[in-house]
């Protein structure tokens, strides 16, 4: 055994060693001389002595041959030989090699980077225990049919857990900010209120300390908190003795119960860094209708299906209200849901780019192979087997693929770092993206596949050569056969078709983004600054103190030079369709759930001017309205209450707080989510229900950022303890809400542009190659009197034929696939004729240009020179 291993090892070394043939020859030669000398000593004449010696020795050549076979590993030797040939072949053609390796590097690199995203975001299981048994539940109320599924009423969730045999546990989540004082300065971080079973249900153990206990769900006992590892490290220096100590959260002392790992991504409160027990008020824990304000997650018992669970939940739902239903979604889908379609689109597109690269390389290699048909013929004539020749050509493409792939992995690792650094991107679990073993394995398979894909066809063609034909044809004088041309034309069509589909998708996304940014938002974002102000702690326990704070702050801000108008509002436009509660007319007999929900906002009088929101009727509320119950509605909200009444200003209705309000004005619609129709909205003066958190908006006269420092100083002077969040322009706020679209569009544009570039290179390569090959034919045509313009036309016509075919196919594919991406579009149909026409024209122009250069070369051919060149 050891002997065999040792021998194999030595043979492996033998394969790598060079120039040992000389040694062997010398050894054998000396052997024969010794034999001959002995013969001479026996008295033979020298000539006869040498003849005898050679006879005694046997065939020197066959000895050498069997020696060689045993010295190394034949397969390895063949491979080494093929590699040497491949290196030689590639270095003979550095231009081709550079194009090939670079395009492969980009193709493989982009695919690897996108795969690492797909892998981390979509394919890897959540860090929860048995995630396949976890489901998110939402309720479907017939009254909110227009809104789709809504949140969950806590009483309902409690009943499901109690009554449904398939449900092991149910838990709730309610996200919301928390102000934490760690070190010296307070900061506002995302937080969540959760019941005691939340962590156990997800199967998450704290890395330090404990989770909550049921008693802590009582009001008054809930001054405990679990912190995220991230917060613990950044604010508390990863102090292990923090557990059990008190920290100041929202101005109250909370005991730190435990620390949870940074990798834990709680559902519905993805970025939460502070968890506190969910203590339900008596009202909430008994209210059986409405209050769909919580997110719920259930864990099924092993062996039960989600269909069973849903059926059981719906039975329970029927007791709470007629038509009340629920819907389940695997938790994984919830966490990745929104990003899913976009990512798959990117993955498909980047795959298409690599396919185009492969097709293009196959085409270029095919051209090169055809010009090497004499070489192939000679090899075949000398006895090289087809398999051997196939392998040899394939080795060349594999070498290119591996070189390109290695470079591509390098590209990918940079790209991933860039992607992760771009933190504004709203991709779930983005921080988990890395170049790990799975991604490397993917890249490796991709390299092999790529090499096979673009190498196999040329290699096969190389071995299909008929040696007699190739040798007789003399390679230069005869125009190439139809078969080879058709193959290459087909490949060009494929490239063009894929590029067309990618360009159309990119075009549609670009149109979507443009339309989205140009859409009438209902306000004017230019020259507007915003900053979120959150009040928490003992200082602001009384609503009146919040009110006084905002009164003083607004007075200070409006005095800042350069400020044209300023105001506050509880939630900025484009930041979400939130605070949905019904408004109604006094004496409305319907139940609360049957009334129309609208977005409710508390704002200051200056808000409408600061945002340039058009007042359609009446007026905005004013300082003089203090003490009076007034409100402003959006046009849609007014229509909901008083359908068909042209001027309802001055009438009364019941606000979200169930108190009567007098309508003083009607304002234009404002988008709560950029890509959705504006919801009906009600605005109330902030002093009617002083909020503890608002966004301050400031319209400036000059450049908005000049006011920023004065704004910061004003906030500081009001309350030095207040954590000051980032001051942004409103344009930036809007822009951030389209980050994901912009990201998708940017990548798609890059993919489509590289596809177009590669395809045009391919067209150029094929046409110019065929022109070069047909020099002789063109020379004859010219000698027979063909016009230059007709030659130009001939070449362009023949070059463009596959482009037109491919374009038609590509457009057809895009039309078919359009439905799949329609969810990613805004304000444009997937069949948008303008986009398709634009892409077609662009592709035809690029294709024609790619043909034109070689065509002009053909038309410029000197007939005499072309014919004499033989």
């Amino acid at each position, binding site marked *: 055994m050891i*002997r065999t291993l*040792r*021998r194999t090892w*030595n*043979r492996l070394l*033998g394969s790598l060693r060079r120039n040992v043939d000389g*040694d*062997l020859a*010398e*050894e*054998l030669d*000396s*052997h024969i*001389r*010794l*034999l001959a*000398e002995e013969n001479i000593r026996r008295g033979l004449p020298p000539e006869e002595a040498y003849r005898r010696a050679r006879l*005694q*020795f*046997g*065939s*020197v050549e*066959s*000895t050498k041959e*069997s*020696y060689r076979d*045993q*010295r190394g590993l034949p397969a390895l030797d063949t491979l080494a030989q093929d590699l040497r040939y491949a290196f030689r072949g590639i270095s003979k053609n550095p231009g081709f090699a550079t194009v090939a390796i670079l395009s492969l590097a980009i193709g493989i690199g982009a695919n690897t980077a996108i795969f690492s995203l797909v892998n981390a975001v979509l394919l890897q299981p959540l860090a929860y225990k048995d995630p396949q048994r976890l489901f998110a539940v939402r309720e479907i109320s017939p009254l909110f049919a227009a809104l789709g599924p809504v949140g969950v009423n806590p009483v309902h969730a409690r009943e499901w857990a109690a009554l449904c045999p398939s449900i092991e546990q149910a838990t709730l989540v309610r996200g919301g900010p928390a102000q934490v004082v760690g070190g010296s300065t307070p900061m506002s971080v995302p937080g969540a209120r959760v019941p005691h079973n939340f962590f156990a249900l997800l199967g998450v153990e704290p890395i330090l300390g404990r989770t909550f206990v049921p008693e802590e769900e009582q009001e008054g006992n809930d001054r405990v908190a679990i912190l995220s590892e991230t917060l613990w490290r950044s604010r508390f220096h990863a102090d292990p003795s923090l557990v059990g100590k008190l920290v100041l959260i929202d101005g109250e002392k909370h005991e730190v119960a435990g620390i949870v790992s940074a990798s834990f991504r709680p559902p519905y409160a993805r970025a939460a860094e502070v968890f506190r027990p969910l203590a339900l008020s008596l009202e909430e824990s008994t209210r059986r209708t409405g209050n769909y304000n919580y997110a719920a997650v259930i864990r099924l018992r092993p062996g039960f299906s989600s269909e069973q669970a849903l059926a059981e939940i719906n039975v329970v739902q029927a007791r709470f209200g007629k038509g009340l239903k629920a819907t389940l979604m695997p938790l994984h889908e919830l966490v990745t849901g929104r990003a899913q379609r976009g990512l798959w689109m990117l993955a498909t597109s980047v795959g298409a780019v690599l396919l185009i690269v492969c097709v293009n390389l196959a085409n270029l290699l095919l051209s090169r192979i055809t010009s090497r048909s004499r070489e192939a013929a000679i090899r075949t004539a000398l006895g090289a087997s087809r398999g051997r020749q196939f392998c040899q050509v394939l080795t060349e493409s594999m070498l290119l693929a591996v070189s390109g792939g290695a470079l591509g992995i390098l590209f990918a690792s940079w790209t991933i770092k860039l992607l992760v650094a771009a933190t504004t991107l709203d991709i779930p679990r983005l921080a988990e993206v890395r170049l790990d073993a799975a991604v490397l394995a993917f890249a490796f398979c991709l390299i092999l596949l790529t090499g096979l894909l673009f190498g196999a066809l040329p290699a096969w063609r190389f071995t299909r050569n008929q040696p007699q034909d190739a040798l007789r044809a003399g390679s230069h004088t005869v125009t190439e056969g139809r078969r080879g041309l058709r193959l290459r034309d087909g490949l060009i069509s494929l490239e063009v078709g894929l590029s067309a589909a990618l360009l159309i998708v990119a075009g549609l996304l670009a149109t979507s983004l443009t339309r989205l940014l140009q859409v009438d938002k209902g306000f004017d974002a230019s020259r507007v600054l915003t900053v979120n102000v959150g009040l928490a702690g003992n200082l602001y326990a009384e609503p009146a103190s919040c009110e006084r704070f905002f009164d003083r702050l607004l007075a200070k801000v409006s005095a800042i030079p350069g400020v044209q108008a300023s105001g506050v509002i509880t939630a900025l436009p484009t930041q979400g369709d939130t605070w949905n509660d019904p408004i109604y007319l006094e004496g409305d007999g319907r139940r609360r759930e049957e009334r129309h929900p609208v977005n409710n906002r508390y704002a200051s009088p200056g808000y409408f001017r600061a945002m340039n929101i058009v007042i359609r009727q009446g007026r905005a509320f004013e300082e003089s309205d203090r003490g009076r119950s007034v409100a402003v509605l959006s046009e849609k909200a007014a229509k909901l209450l008083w359908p068909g009444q042209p001027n309802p200003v001055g009438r009364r209705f019941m606000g979200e707080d169930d108190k009567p309000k007098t309508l003083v004005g009607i304002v234009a619609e404002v988008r709560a989510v950029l890509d959705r129709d504006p919801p009906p909205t009600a605005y109330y003066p902030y002093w009617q229900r002083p909020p503890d958190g608002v966004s301050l908006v400031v319209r400036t006269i000059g450049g908005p950022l000049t006011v920023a420092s004065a704004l910061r100083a004003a906030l500081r002077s009001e309350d030095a303890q207040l954590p000051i969040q980032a001051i942004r322009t409103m344009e930036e706020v809007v822009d951030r809400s389209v980050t994901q679209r912009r990201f998708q569009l940017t990548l798609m544009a890059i993919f489509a542009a590289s596809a177009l570039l590669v395809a045009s290179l391919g067209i150029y390569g094929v046409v110019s190659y065929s022109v070069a090959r047909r020099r002789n034919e063109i020379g004859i045509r010219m000698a027979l009197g063909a016009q230059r313009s007709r030659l130009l036309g001939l070449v362009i016509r023949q070059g463009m034929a596959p482009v037109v075919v491919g374009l038609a196919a590509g457009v057809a594919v895009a039309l078919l696939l359009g439905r799949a991406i329609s969810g990613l579009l805004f304000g444009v149909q997937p069949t948008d004729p303008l986009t398709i026409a634009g892409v077609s024209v662009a592709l035809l122009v690029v294709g024609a240009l790619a043909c034109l250069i070689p065509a002009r070369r053909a038309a410029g051919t000197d007939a005499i020179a072309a014919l004499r060149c033989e």
Partner: protein
Amino acid sequence: MWATNMSTKPEVWQGTLALMVLKTLNAMGPQHGYGIARRIEQTSDNLLSINHGTLYPVLLKLEQEGAIASEWGVSENNRRAKFYRITKAGQKQLASELTQWAQATDIVARFIALKGAKA
């Protein structure tokens, strides 16, 4: 006889040849290829006449297995020649192969004797 058998049953004979090479090197110390071939012929009283060329693949195999080692030296007629010597591993291999060989011939001999008695 050697040559014909070489072509029909090379493995058997190659195995035997390897044993002869090892035994020769063990008995005589470092030798070049010519010396080994000559010595085998002499030992067999020239009953075996070797095609000397067949020796070299066997030497290569033994060297790859680590049973022998080689280095360049000067032959008795002042020519550069490659000298082979047996290694420790080779001596071990030789000993075990000799035992095996002895057992094998012993068994065969018994059968031959058996046959003779019956006839």
